[in-house]
């Protein structure tokens, strides 16, 4: 059954054989050729085929490892094993990254096997699969490692045949000599692995025209057959001998504690074995468990029934009066008196004082929960040897570090195996469930699976923040915008990690707030405090969701107010093609460009305007639509990718339907267009869900929703029926950028603008509701 993780579970002859080969190698050359070369950026070779560029990957914890001996091995039968060190949650990186390496190696993809790495960042480099970073940080190291192994095979062949390496060619899993010699990769595998890893300067790279897989979009995801036959292994699917199942009654209010409890009826349920209190964490809670009462049983059903019979008296703590409508009113009041300026370009007060017209609107977004189809789940086995975990997490090394700390074990005695993730969306980059499983396994001295129910997932999520975004523009007599003022108010993610001062921090500010790309002389971006009363975390696209919603709705409203065409107004605000000069734009010193070096990934208004044109043209902007239909447009740069959406909305008996949605995507070089399209199709659906359905509300400190009946999502009978994805083509030299997240933010405002076009009704609150 464990087709996904056999090598981790059963370290066998294969691993041992590989270690022998690796031990024979001088590792200094790896460091010189790999990591050091990346760090120093010595990439001025005139090869033309491959010119490297630095990315923010180097600044990530434990950076990038580009050591082929860590990532690649070749069996005598020619099977090439490539390690996938990032977590797979539907974005496709488990396939796309090894595919890049295999192409540069000139391997036959049908003879490539993928091995999932456990959490081990000292070995593999950063594994935190978050922030749409996998391709953009790792496409180059993958090419480098593929080229290095190809060169090692070439040198081994040259030695074996007594010819110069230059006379050996590599073609599709085969090495060819000048005199008709030919060998499969497998025949030279052992000799190749004994070669020194070449330095970057000694590598040659494929010409882009010779790519077999990269950029083609024809490689199917590696788990496709397993997924369609039920063999794919997710977090709950690992089975260990003697494993127990636990469900936990967690405090319904953030910071709540168990005052007292009675488990007598619980313990009477057949199958229930233990009831264990789990300690909560004081604020800030980080990724620590919320605490509560765990019911440990022989099966999930018994654990659930046992939990239903618990009698718990809670001390709700300081957030027991959190109520969404009242909190919204507080945020709206606060937004009128911002007290912290993040970006100040030109003279905004002067521009507003001199304005002939001022236009102002305020937009709201409710909390949201991620609800991945697979609710959080983790399996832990704590023995005298240490702790082994199997779970679906986005950051297995982060989980490993925290589990080690929580159990007071040396990190070497903790192993975290990564299964497939049944969706992540940011929820699974928080590993509280893994710590819960570790604590319970230790307590009951047996392997334990902690299963979150859907209700748990919604009640005790790391909530996407709620926000009020207030926008104002100053205009002169001619209707030209002379001042832009954006006040953002939202409880901060930082409150989960540090004492809460109510202010947002630089990462949130970089997501659609201070990075405003407008061709306006005076720009101010500021903030008013909002203290958190829920556990705030990040949800796919993060602060870009409320910012794109507000800004892109606002510009459409402004165009309407001025009697202008929305697209023209948007392009006028974007202005001429240029890169925003952060030095003169009044940007904060801590301006966050998604962790990327600005010189390599600047805000490029030409690319921003281009995707607007592409999406608008594809959707037939300007055409007359039938009664009850409307076309809406929105554009947003996030995760250093530019996405414009043109949504066509049709109102049928009051219900909002989306017959068509066009995405124009500029993500630099497109490594796997097929997965880019699937991510945009998915963004269309998730974007529609958060536009229409996704509202988490609180009363008495408690989440009011509990399952799909009151926290519904777009379904097969009403979703964006025809999504077309238009990818702006670029050569490899245009840096690959994010794909998992940037598709989502423009969807809701494009829909809101389309609803206005169809009905004349302007909606400013997310969620909008399913009907107008």
């Amino acid at each position: 059954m464990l087709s996904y993780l056999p090598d981790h579970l059963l370290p066998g002859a294969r691993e041992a054989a590989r270690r022998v080969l690796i031990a024979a190698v001088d590792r200094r050359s790896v460091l010189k050729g790999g990591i050091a070369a990346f760090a120093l950026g010595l990439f001025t070779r005139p090869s033309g085929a491959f010119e490297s560029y630095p990315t923010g990957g180097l600044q990530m914890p434990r950076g990038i490892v580009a050591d082929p001996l860590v990532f690649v091995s070749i069996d005598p039968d020619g099977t090439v094993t490539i390690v996938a060190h990032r977590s797979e949650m539907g974005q496709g990186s488990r396939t796309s990254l090894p595919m890049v390496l295999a192409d540069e190696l000139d391997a036959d993809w049908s003879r490539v096997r993928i091995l999932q790495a456990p959490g081990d960042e000292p070995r593999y480099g950063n594994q935190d699969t978050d922030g749409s970073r996998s391709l953009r940080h790792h496409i180059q190291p993958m090419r480098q490692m593929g080229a290095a192994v190809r060169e090692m095979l070439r040198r081994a062949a040259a030695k074996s045949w007594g010819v110069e390496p230059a006379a050996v060619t590599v073609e599709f899993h085969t090495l060819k000599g000048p005199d008709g010699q030919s060998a499969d990769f497998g025949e030279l595998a052992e000799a190749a692995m004994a070669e020194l890893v070449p330095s970057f300067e000694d590598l040659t790279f494929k010409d882009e025209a010779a790519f077999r897989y990269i950029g083609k979009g024809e490689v199917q995801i590696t788990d496709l057959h397993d997924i369609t036959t039920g063999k794919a292994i997710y977090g709950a699917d690992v089975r260990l001998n003697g494993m127990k199942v636990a469900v936990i009654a967690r405090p319904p209010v953030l910071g709540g504690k168990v005052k007292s409890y009675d488990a007598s009826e619980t313990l009477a349920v057949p199958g229930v074995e233990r009831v264990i209190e789990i300690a909560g964490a004081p604020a800030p809670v980080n990724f620590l468990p919320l605490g509560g009462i765990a019911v440990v049983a022989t099966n999930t059903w018994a654990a659930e029934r046992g939990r239903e019979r618990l009698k718990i008296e809670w001390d709700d703590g300081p957030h027991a009066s959190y109520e969404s409508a009242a909190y919204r009113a507080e945020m709206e009041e606060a937004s009128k008196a911002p007290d912290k300026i993040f970006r100040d370009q030109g003279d905004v007060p002067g521009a507003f004082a001199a304005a002939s017209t001022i236009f102002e609107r305020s937009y709201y977004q409710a909390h949201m929960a991620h609800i991945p189809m697979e609710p959080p789940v983790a399996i832990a086995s704590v023995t005298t040897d240490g702790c082994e975990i199997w779970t679906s997490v986005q950051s297995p090394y982060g989980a490993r570090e925290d589990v080690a700390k929580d159990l007071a074990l040396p990190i070497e005695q903790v192993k975290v195996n990564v299964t497939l993730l049944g969706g992540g969306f940011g929820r699974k980059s928080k590993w509280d469930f893994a710590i819960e499983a570790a604590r319970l396994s230790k307590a009951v001295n047996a392997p334990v699976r902690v299963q979150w129910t859907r209700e748990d997932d919604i009640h005790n999520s790391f909530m996407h923040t709620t926000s009020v975004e207030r926008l104002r523009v100053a205009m002169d007599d001619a209707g030209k915008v002379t001042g832009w003022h954006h006040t953002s108010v939202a409880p901060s993610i930082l409150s989960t990690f540090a004492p809460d001062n109510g202010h947002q921090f630089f990462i949130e500010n970089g997501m659609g707030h201070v990075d405003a790309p407008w061709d306006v002389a005076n720009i101010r971006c500021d903030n008013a405090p909002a203290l958190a009363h829920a556990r705030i975390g990040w949800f796919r696209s993060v602060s870009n969701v409320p910012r794109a919603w507000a800004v892109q709705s606002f510009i459409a409203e402004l165009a309407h107010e001025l009697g202008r065409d929305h697209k023209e107004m948007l392009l006028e605000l974007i202005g001429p093609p240029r890169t925003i000069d952060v030095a003169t734009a009044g940007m904060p010193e801590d301006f966050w460009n998604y962790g990327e070096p600005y010189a390599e990934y600047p805000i490029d208004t030409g690319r921003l305007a281009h995707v607007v044109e592409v999406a608008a043209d594809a959707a037939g902007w300007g055409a007359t639509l039938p009664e009850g239909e409307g076309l809406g447009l929105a554009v947003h740069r996030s995760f250093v990718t530019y996405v414009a959406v043109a949504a066509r909305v049709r109102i049928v008996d009051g219900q909002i339907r989306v017959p068509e949605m066009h995405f124009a995507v500029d993500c630099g070089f497109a490594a796997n267009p097929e997965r880019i399209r699937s991510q945009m199709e998915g963004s269309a659906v998730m974007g529609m869900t958060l536009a229409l359905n996704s509202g988490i509300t609180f009363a008495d400190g408690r989440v009011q929703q509990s399952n799909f009946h009151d926290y519904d999502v777009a379904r097969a009978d009403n979703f964006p029926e025809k999504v077309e994805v238009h990818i702006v083509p670029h050569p490899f030299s245009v840096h690959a950028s994010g794909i998992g997240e940037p598709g989502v933010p423009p969807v809701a405002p494009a829909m809101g603008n389309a609803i206005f076009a169809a009905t004349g009704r302007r909606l400013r609150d997310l969620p909008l509701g399913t009907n107008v």
Partner: protein
Amino acid sequence: MPIDFSLNGSQHSIDAPSDMPLLWAIRDIVGLTGTKYGCGAGLCGACTVHVDGKAERSCMVSMGEVAGKSVTTIEGLHPEGEHPVQRAWRELNVPQCGFCQTGQIMQAASLVAEKPNITDAEILEGMRGNVCRCGCYQRIVAAVRHAATGI
């Protein structure tokens, strides 16, 4: 008292309380993990199996109700995984994370068997109970159509 039923063509006798949902008996007792837990309330379809050939949410069917009946999970849909719906799913690259897809496939297989000349409207209605949070609906609908009609 053990409950007798057929699972993927072989007879099983399972010692489970009669109110235990079929889902947890399949997963926790038999050990087949292709059937997924998504909501526990019949709202998402991730746990869809066939009971006497018809799609049912296994979280909403008790063990008492399947006594003497024939249950098919994704593992038993086709011995080599070559059911036309499974093939269509692969041909059209439907899955993203894949978690809901076994339930989607079981629902689609039942739908296509019931309605060989299925219309698009019937596909949308028939698949609405199966949630996909990744948002693969466009390809799901196309794959059901492809499996049913070859188009």
